[in-house]
């Protein structure tokens, strides 16, 4: 449930669901996000769900904080309601040309690469949110012993399709972009397709993601 609603500036509501990062709180955020989105409330021009917050921005020419707050407070979300999440399989190649930071992880985590990859590929990930750069999914949770910090100096360019790990999360670089996550592999799949007018992102908040290991040949063959 929303613990507190405050204003973020004069054109947004800041809905606080708690301070923890866990699936339960995040699922509540996503339920609200889906529900408010379907309602198409006049004046709301953006919703940003994250781990434990939902930011609702609106057009100050049309509405204001008080009005939107009242609408949001009147929404009742069924606690047991499930959301429509997809299960997705993402192919990943961990060839040495792609796994840029696997040696760093071996040292930081004190495991050999095969163990790290085995844990990674056996896991079902939960998509907490997408964003930062277009379509980038934040996928959790890695267990305690698999958690490493960001690189001390971020890369200027992380290749498109890179799979990165940081703390309890895995992510996918949907574009070539600067970044500091520990890169362990690369997917040939277009996780974000900017040519699509509708639903350009493959992975949405609440979806379940499993990674499937492929070799270099399969990687090269993937896109014909």
């Amino acid at each position: 449930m929303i613990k507190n609603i405050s204003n973020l500036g004069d054109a947004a509501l800041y809905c606080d669901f708690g301070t923890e990062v866990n699936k339960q709180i995040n699922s509540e955020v996503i339920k609200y996000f889906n529900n408010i989105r379907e309602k198409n409330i006049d004046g709301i021009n953006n919703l940003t769900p994250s781990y434990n917050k939902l930011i609702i921005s609106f057009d100050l020419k049309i509405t204001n904080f008080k009005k939107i707050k009242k609408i949001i407070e009147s929404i009742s979300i069924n606690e047991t309601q499930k959301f429509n999440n997809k299960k997705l399989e993402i192919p990943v190649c961990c060839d040495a040309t792609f796994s840029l930071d696997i040696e760093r992880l071996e040292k930081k985590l004190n495991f050999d690469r095969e163990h790290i990859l085995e844990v990674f590929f056996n896991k079902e990930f939960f998509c907490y949110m997408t964003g930062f750069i277009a379509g980038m999914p934040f996928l959790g949770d890695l267990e305690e012993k698999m958690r490493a910090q960001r690189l001390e100096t971020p890369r200027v360019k992380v290749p498109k399709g890179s799979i990165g790990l940081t703390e309890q999360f895995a992510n996918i670089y949907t574009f070539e972009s600067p970044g500091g996550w520990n890169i362990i592999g690369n997917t040939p799949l277009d996780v974000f397709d900017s040519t699509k007018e509708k639903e350009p992102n493959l992975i949405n908040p609440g979806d379940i993601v499993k990674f499937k290991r492929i070799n270099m040949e399969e990687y090269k063959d993937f896109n014909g």
Partner: protein
Amino acid sequence: MDKNYFEIKRAGINTTFQDKGRDNLYHIGIPFSGAMDNRNFLLANKLVDNKENLPVIEFAYQGPLIKFNGDKITIAITGDVIFKLIKKDKETYGKCYETYQLEDGDEIDILSTNKSVYGYLAISGEFDLKFQWGSCSINTKANIGSNNGNKLTDGQKINICKINSNQRNKKVNYLNSKIENIRVIKGTNFDYFSEKGKKNFFGKQFIVSKLSDRMGMRLEGPKIENIVNTNIKSEGLLKGVVQVPADGNPIIMLSDHGTIGGYPKIGVVASVDYDRLVQISPGTKIKFKEINLSDAETLFKLYEMETQNLISQI
């Protein structure tokens, strides 16, 4: 081959197409974008008798040198901009907020913005542009929008697919006002900062850094000391949000900002001041003044009425 087109002889520093921007995409990581200075964007379109949200050319600091080829067309430039019209027989300086006719072979040389950042060029017609998610606004960092998400380049050709048949000369009296005091509503992490840090934020001068662009405005000044945590769990951002990273230097999110971030939010710039905030050029000294929500709402209403009033005068 299109009959009417612009030839970009010099692209300028950061010349893009912008319209009202794209909404309802924050949740997948796509920012609003759109014209930085909304009032000047609307005025440019109104002067050339366009619908108010048609794409225009936005430029920063030094604008483009453009050659027009085709039938007669009307243009208007808004902002605080120095530009020349180059016709076959003469060169004259033009005035902002007035329309001019271009004929085949005429050129517009947008020399610079005057102690401001952004200016707008609208044409009485429509550029032939590809829209992406309901907007042609170019976000060069994410390669989103028309022109493959890139800024305009030297030598490029821009086709004009439609010219309005009804072209009349119009003008409006308007002077861009400047602000040094930016009104800010306290942010959700205001209490992350020390008493001294809060006092420094609301009271001391900050200098706009050269490292400012359509994504954000970086500031230099007294460090704002964090006493709780220099990171928060990543959450949504908005244009106008002032984040303070560990180094203590505030950054104001602007129209092309990343959609989520993990630095504490000390404040949010009031909507009434956004158009004038983006026009503040690097090296300028600014101060933040606290404002409450209800005053910010009232002032925005007045600002919006003033904008509508200007539009109705055209």
